[in-house]
């Protein structure tokens, strides 16, 4: 008989004997494994059917339900059919959804953090409680990217590293906040769907564009108001009078000189060091990125606007008799243009995409012939979703998927002490295609059978069973 286990899912720390449940009724000891018992979750899919005849105002009409794997349980030890194999007629097609919770030791999350601030160098180690759980990966437009988890951190390192990694992934996937420390970088609190908190300060806006792009977008508005604009950006700082946009608007040269390395006219790299100041630089006083003005070109009274890529920081200056920029009261129109730039920035958010590979054993819960499931997915006869959210399936071998956790039902993920994540995964296909791939046809139940025991939640409008998801449904 398996021994009692200590459940560490909450502070109560229940001591659970084999076959028993914890105080919460949510976790149980199943042969020495801690398993989740949350009710099976069903999401309502498809929007109000305005197009299908007269709408009578009943928003329930036309809704159909999609049985997610959240709370379904797993197939472990793998030779068993998936816990729920349900059938449903959808638009005249008999569809089958195979629903299981997969135990993923090959899994992780990709995190996109909308910020210009420097949070750490590419390749820098990301830590939680001192344990390495991933790294900073190649940046994307207006965003920093993290790659967290993966088998090497989950099971390839020390016991503590695996436990901390699993816990951080679980919390990120369940849309809870997690504080990350990046080696020689920032302390960042990441929560799916929320702004990042960088070194204690919540980020507000995502840049409207790089410094050069900002010049291009707002040149026409700035040219009549001021003589020079410098958009401070760690990536590309833009200078209006030198930039192609300023030239085409006939903005005369100003003699304002910017530090850094000139890329093309009006575009400068490395005007300062990366940091958490203006535009992702370490600059708090923008005048520090200026060299002395060219006395042959500049003139006393020259009007200079300096602004960051989000418009959150800006300053208005005028050159004095010695051609030194002095802070001055900004005309109302300049103030309005700074606000216009900020208004064009999108809110800064953290996005968390779960990524995992459905291994051989999980596929056995779907069919006796696991490779046929892989082929069926590649052939677009089988659609893969995670918690009712359509998943992106990577090309190449295996069934490696990515899905946005933001739109999944709450607490869609669990874990096992392996350590590994327990993630919902559903395979939807025509009944005939399920038979063809060797499915467990005798296990199919009508969807109505499982609704009584399920928790029902509203979906996000995505519909894993929609015909457009399948090769045969493409028009």
């Amino acid at each position, binding site marked *: 008989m398996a021994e009692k286990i200590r459940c560490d*899912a*909450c*502070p*109560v720390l229940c001591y659970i*004997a084999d076959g028993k449940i*914890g*105080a*919460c009724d949510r976790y149980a000891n199943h042969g020495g494994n801690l398993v989740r018992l949350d009710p099976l979750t069903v999401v309502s899919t498809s929007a109000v059917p305005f197009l299908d005849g007269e709408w009578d105002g009943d928003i329930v009409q036309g809704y159909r339900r999609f049985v997610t794997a959240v709370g379904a349980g797993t197939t472990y030890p793998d030779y068993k059919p998936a816990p729920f194999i349900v059938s449903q007629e959808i638009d005249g097609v008999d569809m089958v959804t195979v629903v299981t919770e997969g135990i993923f030791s090959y899994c992780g999350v990709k995190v996109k953090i909308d910020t210009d601030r420097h949070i750490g160098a590419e390749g820098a180690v990301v830590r939680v409680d001192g344990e390495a759980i991933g790294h900073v990966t190649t940046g994307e437009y207006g965003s920093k990217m993290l790659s967290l988890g993966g088998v090497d951190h989950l099971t390839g390192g020390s016991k503590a590293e695996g436990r901390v990694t699993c816990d951080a992934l*679980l919390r990120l996937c369940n849309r809870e906040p997690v504080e990350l420390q990046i080696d020689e970088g920032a302390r960042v609190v990441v929560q799916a769907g929320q702004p990042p908190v960088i070194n204690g300060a919540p980020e507000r806006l995502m840049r409207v564009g790089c410094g050069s792009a900002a010049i291009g977008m707002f040149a026409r508005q700035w040219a009549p108001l001021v003589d020079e604009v410098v958009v401070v950006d760690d990536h590309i700082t833009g200078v209006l009078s030198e930039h192609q946009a300023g030239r085409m608007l006939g903005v005369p040269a100003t003699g304002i000189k910017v530090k850094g390395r000139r890329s093309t006219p009006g575009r400068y790299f490395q005007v300062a060091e990366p940091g958490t100041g203006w535009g992702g630089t370490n600059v708090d006083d923008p005048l520090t990125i200026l060299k002395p003005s060219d006395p042959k070109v500049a003139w006393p009274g020259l009007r200079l606007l300096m602004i960051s890529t989000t418009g959150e920081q800006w300053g208005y200056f005028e050159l004095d008799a010695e051609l030194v920029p002095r802070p001055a009261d900004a005309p109302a129109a300049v103030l309005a243009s700074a606000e216009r730039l900020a208004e064009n920035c999108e809110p800064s958010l953290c996005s968390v995409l779960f990524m995992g590979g459905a291994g051989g054993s999980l596929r056995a819960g779907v069919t006796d012939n696991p490779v046929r499931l892989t082929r069926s997915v590649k052939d677009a006869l089988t659609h893969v979703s995670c918690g009712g959210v359509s998943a992106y399936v990577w090309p190449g071998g295996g069934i490696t998927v990515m899905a946005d956790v933001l739109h999944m039902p709450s*607490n869609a993920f669990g874990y096992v002490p392996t350590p590994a994540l327990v993630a919902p995964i559903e395979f939807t296909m025509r009944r005939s295609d399920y038979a063809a791939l060797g499915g467990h046809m005798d296990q199919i139940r009508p969807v109505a059978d499982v609704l009584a025991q399920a928790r029902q939640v509203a979906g996000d409008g995505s519909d894993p069973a929609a015909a457009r998801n399948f090769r045969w449904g493409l028009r």
Partner: protein
Amino acid sequence: MSGPVAARLGDRLHLQHGPIDLIIGCDPGARAAAFAAAMARFASVLGELVAERPALRVQGAAVQGPVARRMAAAVAPHRVFVTPMAAVAGAVADEVLAAMRAAAPVTRAYVNNGGDIALHLGPGHSFRARIAGLDGADLGLVDVQAGQGIGGMATSGLGGRSLTMGIAQSVTVLAPCAATADAAATLIANAVDVPGHPGIVRQRACDVVPDSDLGQHLVTRFVGGLTGAEVALALSGGAAEARRMQAAGVIHAAILCLRDRVEVAGHPAYFLERSAAHA
């Protein structure tokens, strides 16, 4: 380890942490401030209880925290075996409701902790709760009005997560606060019993739930066939216990259900409907 989580369910707020699930409602005027206060208070409740758990599992031990003191106070009037844990659900509901009332001018609010409900009804407001059998059968409707002195409603019995020493399907108690109702419902449900009946399977609590505060006390695992006379006998035992509590001023009323028979102890006015079959 998961921390406390919150979610909006339409106009209601759902808070969960470990074994605690609260569904909270509040009048629209005070809702935003009251929900914020509920979330703030809820954040540390489970941690406080876990810190004092050893004392809370012993009858008569001294406790410190505000929720723990509510639990101890709720079981204090009773002279039979009962630990403060019998009032944990109600006490959490009372504590969160108190935090909401301290933060906002609440006129009508409830905190429902898995069926143990703390209530605040300002003048002119009422609260209704339907009693269902374990099979979903409708057993009646409870109606509570402002000014009746009822601040809590709790249910114990064979359903739900807790163990019971009796055989009641459910005992619903109306009392001045949810913690008091919770403890009383537990004890009245224990008193609904046919001692020595061969059809009732009992087991030591520690063999069912290793951590149980009930230790070696026998708890009910299965109730076999009962004659009408046995059902009536069991209900009358529970009702007598409920009337003793009502006479002592501990509770207002209790509604006892067994095999779809319903018995009301205390003031019957709270119990609005019951279908004829159960009369």
